[in-house]
């Protein structure tokens, strides 16, 4: 599973940071920072899915191989 994050769409709802803290950090203004783009380690797949399923702006996308 790969994770993609679109900074242009992000409006700082911070759902990803709350639900997937191992995948996302947040800057001082509250916009998301994806820690590591690309392949999601198996143990973080659940966090990745929660982030993608709860972002109101559809800014987090998962690509399943």
């Amino acid at each position, binding site marked *: 599973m790969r994770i993609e994050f679109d900074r242009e769409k992000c409006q700082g709802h911070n759902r990803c940071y709350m639900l997937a803290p191992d995948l996302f950090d947040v800057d001082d203004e509250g916009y998301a920072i994806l820690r590591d783009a690309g392949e999601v380690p198996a143990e973080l797949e659940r966090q990745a899915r929660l982030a993608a399923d*709860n972002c109101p702006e559809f800014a987090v996308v998962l690509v399943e191989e």
Partner: protein
Amino acid sequence: MTLPQRPAVADWATDFDHTHPDYAAAAPEIWDDLREQCPVARTERFGGAWLPVRHADVAAIAHDTEHFTSKAVIVSDFRGLVDAPVGYAPPITSDPPFHQEARRLLLPAFSPKAVALLEPFTRQFCSSLLDGLAASGSRQVDAAVDYAQHIPVQVIAHMLGVPPEDGDRFRVFIHRILEAPGQTGPIEPEDTLTFYLWQLIEQRRTDPGDDLISYLLTTEIEGEPLGPEHIVGTCALLLLAGIDTTWSAIGASIWHLATHPEDRRRLVAEPELVPTAVEEFLRAYAPVTMARLVSEPVEVGGCPMEVDDWVLLPFPAANRDPEVFDRADEVLVDREQNRHLAFGLGIHRCIGSNLARMELTVAVEEWLRRFPEFEVADPEGVRWSTGQVRGPRTLPLRLPEGA
């Protein structure tokens, strides 16, 4: 004085009135009907307004600042007094490009990391309110008036740096604005919120602290320090945008738990589920409907919108669209897929969303810890507000003996 009754609505698709008590009483059914027959409703009331109810249309409008302006966001018979882009309550009534300037000043104070620092204070305050309710010995409490209402007021007063000894005075100002506008008779100019804030600002200028007012005094917009008018306006906006909204969300959540014992018992048994449940309450009982004015002619869902038409953004209706949410009409406290729009979408996304979520989670957790069992004392006594911010204004609950 009794207000003139609003004329009854004959047909919600062509004559809707979101301020009518019939809308407050049955909005979800009205949205469901409209979604099927006419997803963008129209009314000639308010000088002409539209009501889109599909998620896709609400999202498209919230993201479109080219055809829609925020210079007025509460529907009335008037259409805003000051022109965009600066507006009178930045950033909520501002348009790009000024909007981003005004918004950026506030974002750091409301980021998740800044808000986390306020959690212990909030928890302690909720717990002290509950101590008071438990100590009163009364078996009947009003969760809206005696609990939910106080939480956002106390938190915002703390953020602004209102000294604790001014708390009572501050609450009187807030009460006048939110509950009894224009009903208190003549007021001395020294006894107004504006005057009070003005004084507080002057005081912080000479003796800064780590509060929001002191911080705003150090910020600049386009190379100039913020004038006291901008700071007073910002404080007033935070009070207006942050209090009855959060009060509504806390009250609606407790109302749900009072009327759904199975959900209440589950959250008591699994407190780690509360943050997920809170998102579901925000989806199902989203308190806020915003509005825009059309600034350039545009078509939405096949409807031709003209300049100066009002367009409502009913986030609660979008949150119940089955296109986006499975089992949209059910409240599922463990819903894992929840892209709800309770805090809006796009550039005006609620600045206070992290703060409101924290307050709501803490308020529910502390309440359930103190009062795991409770029920509505008198269903007739539950009164919900009407208009663009919706939540219980009175919520009489019965506590079991010995709680």
